[in-house]
């Protein structure tokens, strides 16, 4: 892992390759890749709390959708809205929602946390679905992409799909650097410590609740950035953007790509959305197959694509901890982890 080639050159190469895509691929694939990047951003944001924080949040689509709605509501029908005004607004709204939901949900643990975040996410879904805010269940259009201008001089033209793609790619690079810095910081280590052993972290004097809430709000705000650009790209917002099916889908991406790294969920997004694209071309009932694949992943590949790669290419270092990836024969007796969870839940 200490190989400098692998650490420095490979990412640069990948980014350069990705930046060249609009010159090589038709517009459809440029737009598809933009969509993949934006959902990858969302999955990476979610992973800050799921992978590093050990908190299975089921409401991140709500932050994503809320920011999108903020853009839709702040955009005039006659012309583009300014990105400088609407982006901070959208991210602020998402962060505030994350603060409120996180503040309440983090009082609970384990299964409770999953259920409570799911319920609060659905509350926001119903808020937009059942009332007439921004078109109710029909959703609302965003007729113009936000304008990026300084003193009236346009800098970036988001109406151009290629430009939008590069912006998404740029965001991706920024997110990866930011999340890497964050998870390598003292704050990130405290977050992981709380995940690994809450009681020990607490007795060492870490303010667990505050650390988790901070992570939750940062993650919600980042999900908001992803949602803002996603809404701008679709040119449309609907309550489904906030729904828990999207929250669960990005969780699949996180697990598929690997939870222990910053970029894993991005890989998960690429694999899952690529798979969906292929399945959609093959059959009308692609969701059936996707569901079966999700079930198979849980049963056979608990470590996601990383497991698959290890199995196919066979890694020598892997053999040491191989039993971990075998769901049929858990290394610990089945009853034990549940008891341990219960202890933590009520701790």
């Amino acid at each position, binding site marked *: 892992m200490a190989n400098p080639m692998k650490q420095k050159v490979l990412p640069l190469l990948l980014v350069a390759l990705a930046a060249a895509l609009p010159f090589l691929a038709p517009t459809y694939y440029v737009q598809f890749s933009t969509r993949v990047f934006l959902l990858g951003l969302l999955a990476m944001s979610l992973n800050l709390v799921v992978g590093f924080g050990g908190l299975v949040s089921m409401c991140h689509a709500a932050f994503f959708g809320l920011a999108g709605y903020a853009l839709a509501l702040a955009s005039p029908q006659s012309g583009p809205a300014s990105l400088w005004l609407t982006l901070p607004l959208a991210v602020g709204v998402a962060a505030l929602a994350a603060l409120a939901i996180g503040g*309440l949900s983090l009082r609970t643990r384990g299964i409770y946390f999953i259920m409570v975040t799911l*319920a609060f996410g659905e509350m926001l879904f119903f808020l937009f679905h059942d009332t007439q805010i921004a078109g109710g269940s029909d959703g609302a259009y965003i007729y113009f992409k936000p304008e990026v201008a300084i003193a009236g001089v346009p800098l970036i033209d988001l109406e151009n799909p290629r430009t939008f793609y590069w912006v998404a790619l740029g965001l991706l690079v920024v997110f990866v650097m930011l999340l890497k810095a964050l998870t390598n910081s003292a704050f990130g280590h405290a977050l992981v410590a709380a995940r690994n052993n809450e009681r020990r972290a607490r007795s060492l004097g870490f303010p667990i609740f505050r650390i988790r809430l901070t992570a939750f709000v940062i993650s919600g705000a980042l999900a908001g950035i992803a949602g803002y650009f996603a809404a701008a790209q679709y040119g449309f917002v609907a309550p489904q953007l906030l729904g*828990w099916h999207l929250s669960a889908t990005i969780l699949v991406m996180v697990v598929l790509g690997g939870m222990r790294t910053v970029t894993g969920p991005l890989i998960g997004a690429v694999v899952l959305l690529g798979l969906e694209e292929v399945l959609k071309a093959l059959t009308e*009932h692609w969701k*059936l197959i996707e569901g079966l694949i999700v079930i198979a992943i849980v*049963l056979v590949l*608990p470590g996601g694509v990383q497991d698959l790669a290890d199995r196919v290419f066979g890694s020598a270092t892997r053999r040491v901890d191989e039993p971990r990836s075998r769901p049929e024969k858990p290394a610990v007796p089945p009853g034990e982890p*549940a008891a341990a969870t219960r202890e933590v839940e009520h701790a």
Partner: protein
Amino acid sequence: MDFLTFAVQLLNGVQYGLVLFLVASGLTLVFGILGVINLAHGAFYMLGAYVAYWITSYTGSFWLALLGGVAIAFVVGLLLENVFIRRMYGRDHLAQVLLSFGFILVIDEVRQILFGKDVHSVATPDFLRGSIPLTDVLSYPVYRLAVSLFCLAIAAAIFFVIRYTRIGMIVRAGAENREMTRALGIRFDAVNRYVFAVGIVLAALGGIVIAPISTVYPGMGDSMLILSFVVVVLGGIGSVAGAAIGALLIGLADTFGKVFFPTFSSITVYLLMALVLLWRPNGILGKREV
């Protein structure tokens, strides 16, 4: 609002709460005893309603639908436990969430293939048709009353089984301390299978009895799942009595929310949940934090 209108709304709220209890008790049993979170619980509720529609449309008999639906749900529950859920004991909740999300995708698509997207209705069984007149304009449907009584009977049966039978004793012991129960040579794993199947049956039963009241439509499982979650959060995980309290609270909050704040009615139940979380994070009857 005069007294009779209030009474009718109260009955509606209680009836809704009782059906909610039926579904949520299945969820809380599976949580509390198996330690498994099942997001597909709502999907089985929906499936129950569709099976009721399917059987009544062929046979015309609601009673056959009730029996058939319960039998199908029980077999499906046993099968799923044996093939999938069994592997989830002791796995982290995230794996359980994803597995059951996979179930939802499969069930939704199978429903789509078999029944399509249309909204269906199920006829009320013959001798429960009609209403009890209260005043010249107000009346209360017999079927709703029958549903309330049926749910109460099921609730009583659950309490009786858990409290007074040998199986209930094993279930309680297993929920309290899994390893100790196993170490004492009690066939806890065999009981697990039935607990999961009964959980699925309770979800499907909810769907079957609600079918003649509301319509049968594709998204019905989702809203029921979320509400059941709220009920379990309110009452405390694994507590059937807590689920009963939670379900009645939600049923009443939802019904009266619709009367008093029609625009924001869908939010009242979540506000209630937020309040309870502030007051008792582990639910009204949940174990206290140590």
